């Protein structure tokens, strides 16, 4: 029963997210807004619940299963992948490496700045 409560709550937040996105015309997927609303609720409430934890870990522990049906949809795009394999492949590898390097540099730079300021204040 408690698992059911958790799933129901997730669906209610998703539904609220979808409806708000449509009403307010924000260019964000409905479930993402639902996630933000649930996150804010948890912050305000100060704790999560057992049923919510159970439902969330059940869904997230097999997250990769959930994108299999969409991935199989690749069979519809075979022609595109064959003709555009070079730009797709290069863009994926280069952009992933660039993203990791830039994020790591900015984060460690920011950390250094923070500890420098903390030292100066002390």
């Amino acid at each position: 029963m408690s698992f059911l409560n958790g799933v129901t709550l997730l669906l209610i937040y998703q539904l609220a997210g979808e409806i708000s996105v449509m009403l307010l015309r924000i260019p964000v997927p409905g479930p993402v807004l639902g996630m933000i609303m649930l996150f804010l609720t948890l912050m305000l409430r100060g704790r999560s619940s057992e049923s919510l934890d159970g439902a969330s870990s059940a869904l997230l522990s097999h997250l990769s299963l959930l994108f299999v049906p969409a991935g199989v949809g690749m069979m519809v795009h075979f022609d595109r992948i064959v003709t555009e394999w070079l730009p797709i492949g290069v863009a994926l590898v280069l952009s992933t490496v660039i993203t990791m390097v830039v994020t790591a540099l900015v984060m460690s730079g920011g950390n250094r700045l923070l500890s420098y300021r903390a030292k100066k204040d002390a």
Partner: protein
Amino acid sequence: MPEPDLPTIWVYLSASPLLGLTITLVAYSLAYRLYLYSNSHPLLNPVVTAVGVLIVFLLATGTPYEAYFEGGQFIHFLLGPATVALAIPLYKQGANLKKLWLPLSVALITGVTVGGLSSVLIARLLGASVQTQMSLAPKSVTAPVAMGISEKIGGLPSLTAVLVVVTGIIGAVLGTKLFALMRLRDDAVKGIAMGVAAHGIGTARAFQVSSQMGAFSGLAMALSAFLTAVILPWLLDLIGLFG
């Protein structure tokens, strides 16, 4: 009543959602077992194996994707509630969030911007079609969110799903080597870079290194999913104007 021979049974089954649903679960659990058996080798990512097996099966039996998706949609539907469920691990990282919010938000905004724009620009430079560029743009974000973004900006959600998985594998394979090359020591920094670039598949890899790196990677993955959904459509509008 006609004699129930194999072709008749097949005609019945291929029209029912039961088959698509069942073969998805069977293919995934076999793929997952293979993945565990290989000590979680990133190239044997269960999504890749399961998708490959299913495509071969559908092509061999001449089943169109639409017929398969009649059953697959039940699993596909769960992507929505799973996205909402990301709020819980994010909430549990609350203490880290409070401590690091300033450098973290600067790093995330930069990472998300660079990731989205670089993939579109590289693909555009090498002559990819606009639809492919748009399908590539949200590649670093966890699949359910990436597919939603792709749909909004005029990409192909199913192509995006595949590109997201491939991106995750690239990040998981190259990430740790790259961080060693950059001489990074801080697991928090490494985890954040991994989560921004390579979402859940990168996060799974980060947990193998240390639980701290995994937690930060998960945090970065959830936050960058949200940021990308907000920033990316607007950014692409911008380069659409200047490109």
